[in-house]
């Protein structure tokens, strides 16, 4: 491959005179000569027309530093949940510093603008990309994995060898034995990610669905809403009257957004935090509920009890927007279904009791309402919220039915009165009542829940309870109201990222009749499911269970939900057999090759020692694609160096917090031999195709046993040559396609978007795999989720067509979770007395920036954890001591910060320290078993199903039971 540089001279060539603006002249260089024993050199040209005055080095500082250019940049693949545009100041091919591109215009006069956005990490990326951790040449491992032996190889050698390795894997075990993981580096909306996606798709690799693998899947939202996108712009928070931060710490994790909460206080809002510890977000709160860890569902249910008992609920909203009026058969404790009432009835048609006609009527908007479940409009029906009703079944039997509401009230009144909840949550019952009353009384109340709420064992139960509160108070779907986790901007042109994402022609034809009427959220969900079925997506936790050696740990008795009759192995079997959970490669097929882009599995995966010791040895080929070294990269066979964020173009994924889509222009050339992701993966596809041709590789086994032709991989990747990833402007060509086809944003071409940096959202986009918060976008308003449901009465994409609190899936009934309840996690009674909790920290985006010297200086410089004096004193632990955190599964050592702000019983260690920052490289994940709920493997029921980026099991790293003992004392030794 002639256009790939072989390892070349590392010498930097100067250009004389260019700085002064005159014609450039190359400076002559000495060359070692191979024919004489004297080196030869080209005579230097006569250089100096004028004399240079130089006395001492202060002379060189006299001239005022003048920038060559200021470029709009951002940190596309850092997987930071904010999107901030930066001005990157460039001179002499180096990006020197950055300052916010603070040009955001507010949508309406009565909300604060979003300027300046940004954080301390973004403000020093220029130094991170030039830090020691940067890798600038392709590397090949020499010696054992993890032994630290590397040699520099050319791109040509690296790509040839990797391509051959991938072909070998495909020939041996099929293309699904090649595992691709973008992990927490996540995805941009443009060329920086499109290359990997196209490669994975063209190769028919297994793609790890890491969404929940990082513990970010709001399963409670999926179960209740059939979707989890529930956020708008952060200036919408300003419109709230009652903001509850509940399992989240936005002061750390939403640095550019959180001012809206603090400014809302000045506007008269109340800010409440529900958290076990006096978290940094509590600093600016008005009220704190110091709840016992992992009892949040009990608090939520007790508040619901108070609201109902004191009649503080919005009945009209509930009747229309929730399943609370739906009928349940008392005999079976399941929904009353059409199939109960008619011989030819369907299972997904459900009923409420119409008070007008005093009959059970089929609920409009439910999945099987006969009209595709489109609208919630109740028309003339008056659903009964409560009551006992006699219904005659198809077999002639009469059964008694009652409502979901009745079931709820009964359960709340018997188990979740404030006094009872107080015993669980440790909160004063008056405090619970006050909280419930204030929330109900507020014109607009919202719950900021964050991803943190997904990382507890029963996080889905927390979320179901939170959503219940926002439903009872009629807040979901209104500005400044409702449960908020996150959402992404849609971008119609994003399809350009993939060569052929989406539906077959036949699928599209089938959609036409639906499309004519307008696609519903449920239609879209069907489309996503179909699309997801065309690629080998596999959720991370089941993948680890089946292929990576985690089964043994997760099958252990103490990690099971004692309410369930079987252990997780049983449910896994049933789920795989039913086709509910997708496992790629299939059981029995060996994973052979692993390519990860930027992510760091050996830091991130729970008990990552298992991955290292069991999964890794199965792999013939491990390739890390990254701009920086990491623990995982140290165990790779090849390292492909990727251009840093300011060295390539890209589109940051569009988190909905800001009314703009943020793009990143190329400020400087890639350092050393690094290449953009777009070029790197394009080349990889090209090499696979060429090597497959050269090696006469016939069809191999591809996706789900179909055959796959490796000699067309690059054609597929480039859409038969439409793209040429080696062309410098090729990524902009892709961006052109993205923006030309995206009427929802203000830029019409890639170049225009790059010059803007921040591209204004101007209208709604259609939903996509990751975006469907179902709200119209009005450029002159703040943005909030779920408007369509309340304003247009569109049916929710659930079985009931409503926010659904009763789930009569048999597994849920077995588990006692058919209704939102509080359950103790499996570790509740662990003999280890402390619970390890954590969260994202303010100092890094996952492991990126974790080793940045300046930022480490602003912490303890080494991994540290927080403990309350009450737990420290009996263990003779002082601030600054090193302690060992341990349980039967593993251990690590860290420095203690003795903090009155931390709750007794808690050990808080914020995340993403690299294992090599700990003694013996035992990272903070080692004791973390991170069990997960078998229920999350359920499927075959309305909204309860898996597809790519939806409804996959999330693990529970939080609350790991541990004990702590003192190892050494820094301060005492010093004294």
């Amino acid at each position: 491959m002639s256009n790939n540089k072989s390892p070349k001279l590392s010498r930097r060539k100067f250009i004389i005179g260019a700085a002064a603006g005159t014609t450039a002249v190359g400076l002559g260089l000495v060359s070692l000569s191979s024919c004489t024993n004297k080196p030869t050199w080209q005579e230097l040209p006569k250089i100096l027309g004028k004399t240079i005055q130089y006395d001492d080095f202060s002379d060189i500082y006299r001239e005022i530093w003048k920038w060559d250019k200021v470029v709009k940049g951002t940190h596309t693949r850092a997987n930071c949940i904010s999107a901030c545009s930066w001005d990157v100041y460039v001179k002499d091919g180096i990006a020197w510093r950055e300052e916010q591109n603070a040009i955001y215009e507010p949508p309406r006069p009565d909300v604060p603008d979003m300027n300046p956005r940004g954080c301390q990490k973004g403000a020093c990326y220029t130094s991170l990309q030039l830090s020691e951790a940067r890798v600038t040449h392709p590397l090949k491992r020499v010696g054992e994995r993890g032994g630290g032996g590397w040699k520099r190889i050319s791109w040509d050698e690296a790509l040839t060898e990797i391509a051959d390795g991938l072909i070998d894997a495909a020939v041996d075990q099929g293309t699904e034995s090649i595992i691709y993981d973008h992990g927490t580096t996540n995805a941009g909306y443009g060329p920086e990610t499109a290359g990997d996606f196209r490669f994975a798709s063209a190769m028919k690799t297994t793609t790890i669905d890491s969404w929940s693998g990082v513990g970010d899947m709001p399963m409670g939202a999926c179960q209740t809403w059939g979707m989890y996108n529930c956020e708008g712009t952060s200036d919408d928070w300003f419109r709230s009257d009652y903001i509850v931060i509940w399992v989240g710490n936005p002061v750390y994790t939403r640095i550019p957004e959180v001012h809206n909460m603090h400014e809302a206080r000045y506007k008269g809002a109340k800010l409440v935090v529900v958290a076990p510890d006096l978290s940094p977000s509590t600093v600016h709160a008005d009220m704190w509920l110091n709840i016992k860890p992992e009892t949040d569902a009990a608090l939520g249910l007790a508040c619901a009890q108070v609201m109902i008992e004191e009649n503080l609920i919005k009945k009209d909203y509930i009747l229309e927007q929730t399943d609370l009026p739906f009928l349940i058969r008392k005999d079976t404790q399941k929904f009353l279904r059409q199939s109960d009432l008619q011989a030819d009835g369907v299972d997904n048609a459900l009923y409420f009791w119409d008070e007008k006609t005093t009959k059970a009527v089929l609920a409009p908007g439910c999945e099987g309402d006969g009209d595709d479940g489109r609208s919630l409009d109740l028309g003339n029906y008056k659903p009964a919220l409560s009551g006992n009703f006699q219904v005659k079944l198809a077999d002639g039997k009469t059964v008694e039915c009652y409502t979901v509401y009745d079931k709820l009230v009964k359960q709340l009144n018997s188990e979740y009165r404030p006094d009872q909840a107080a015993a669980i949550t440790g909160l004063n019952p008056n405090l619970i009542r006050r909280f419930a009353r204030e929330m109900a009384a507020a014109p607009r109340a919202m719950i900021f829940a964050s991803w943190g709420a997904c990382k507890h064992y029963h996080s889905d139960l927390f979320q179901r309870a939170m959503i219940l509160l926002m439903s009872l108070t009629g807040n979901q779907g209104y500005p400044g109201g409702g449960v908020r986790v996150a959402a992404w901007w849609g971008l119609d042109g994003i399809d350009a990222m993939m060569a052929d994402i989406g539906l077959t022609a036949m699928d599209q034809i089938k959609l036409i009749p639906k499309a004519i009427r307008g696609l519903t959220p449920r239609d879209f969900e069907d489309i996503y499911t179909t699309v997801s079925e065309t690629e080998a997506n596999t959720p991370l936790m089941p993948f680890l269970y089946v292929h990576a050696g985690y089964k043994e740990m997760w099958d252990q008795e103490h990690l099971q939900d004692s309410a369930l009759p079987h252990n997780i192995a049983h449910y896994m079997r049933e789920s795989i057999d039913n086709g509910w959970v997708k496992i790629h490669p299939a059981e029995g097929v060996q994973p052979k090759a692993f390519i990860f882009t930027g992510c760091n599995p050996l830091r991130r995966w729970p008990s990552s020692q298992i991955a290292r010791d069991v999964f890794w040895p199965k792999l013939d080929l491990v390739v890390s694609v990254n701009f920086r070294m990491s623990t995982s990269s140290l165990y790779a066979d090849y390292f492909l160096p990727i251009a840093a964020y300011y060295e390539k173009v890209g589109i940051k994924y569009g988190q909905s917090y800001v009314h703009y889509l943020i793009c990143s222009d190329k400020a400087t050339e890639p350092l050393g031999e690094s290449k953009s992701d777009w070029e790197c993966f394009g080349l990889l596809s090209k090499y696979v195709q060429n090597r497959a041709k050269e090696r006469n590789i016939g069809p191999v086994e591809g996706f789900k046993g179909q055959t796959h032709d490796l000699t067309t991989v690059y054609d597929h990747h480039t859409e038969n040559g439409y793209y040429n990833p080696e062309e410098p402007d090729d990524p902009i060509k892709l961006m052109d396609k993205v923006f030309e086809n995206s009427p929802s944003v203000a830029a019409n071409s890639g170049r225009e978007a790059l010059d803007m940096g921040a591209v204004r959202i101007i209208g709604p986009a259609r939903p996509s795999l990751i975006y469907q918060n179902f709200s119209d976008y009005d450029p002159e308003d703040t943005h909030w989720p779920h408007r369509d449901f309340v304003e247009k009465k569109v049916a929710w994409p659930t079985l009931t067509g409503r926010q659904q609190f009763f789930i009569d899936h048999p597994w849920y009934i077995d588990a006692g979770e058919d209704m939102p309840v509080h359950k103790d996690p499996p570790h509740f009674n662990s003999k280890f007395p402390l619970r390890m909790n954590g969260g994202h920290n303010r100092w890094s985006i996952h492991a990126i920036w974790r080793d940045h010297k300046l930022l480490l200086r602003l912490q303890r410089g080494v991994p540290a954890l927080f403990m309350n004096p009450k737990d420290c004193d009996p263990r003779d632990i002082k601030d600054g001591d090193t302690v060992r955190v341990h349980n039967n599964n593993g251990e690590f050592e860290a420095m203690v910060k003795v903090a009155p702000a931390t709750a007794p019983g808690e050990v808080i260690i914020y995340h993403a320290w690299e294992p090599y920052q700990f003694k013996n490289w035992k990272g903070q994940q080692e004791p973390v078993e991170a069990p997960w709920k078998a229920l999350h493997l359920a499927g075959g029921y309305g909204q309860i199903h898996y597809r790519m980026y939806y409804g996959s099991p999330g693990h529970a790293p939080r609350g790991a039971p541990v004990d702590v003992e003192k190892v050494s004392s820094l301060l005492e030794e010093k004294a």
Partner: protein
Amino acid sequence: MNIPTKSTLSAKQRSFAYGLMAATFDYPDKEFTELIHNKQLSDQCKTILCDIYPALKEDIDWTLLTTQDDKETLQVEFSRLFDVGASGPPCPLNGGVYLEERMQTLEEMVRFYNYFGLTAGEDFEELPDHITTQLEFMHFLCHCEDEHQDDPEKANHFQRAQRDFINRHLGKWVPQLNDNVQENQAAPFYLTLIDMVTRYILLEKQYVNNLCGMITVN
């Protein structure tokens, strides 16, 4: 006062020496490895450098600059020492890594180069604090000094620049690089190469300091 005010060494030769040393930091590809194998590299360095500072003849074991290690062995060693690391290679060839604030070092490099009318070529791959860049800048300064050999006053400006550049940069961090190479038990070839460059630079430091009136007393 008996402080040398006139250069006693040939600036042209010194310029040559710097250019040559810059070339010795090539990645050991086929061509470069050949030069090592067939003794060319060793001979050429010895000829040029010892001509300027005869003391180097004895201080360096020149035979170690010739080795029959194969290309792969040299490449692995090069990468181990200079290229790779989860948080940087053990013996980086970038001066800014040794000094505390890298961006500041880079800025000073760019300022030095700009001040003397230089800027980066378009296809540069290394940062301005890389050893080859710094050595080539010295190569350039000595060359300019040579151009003004008839006018000591003018030549002196370039001598002062050499003095500051060595004192503030090469002379500061190259000895640390040398320490690191020794600590990391580099292969004899690299051990010797870096030792050669270090010794040369320290001799130069003394020379330019004397030249510019900075007295050193032991």
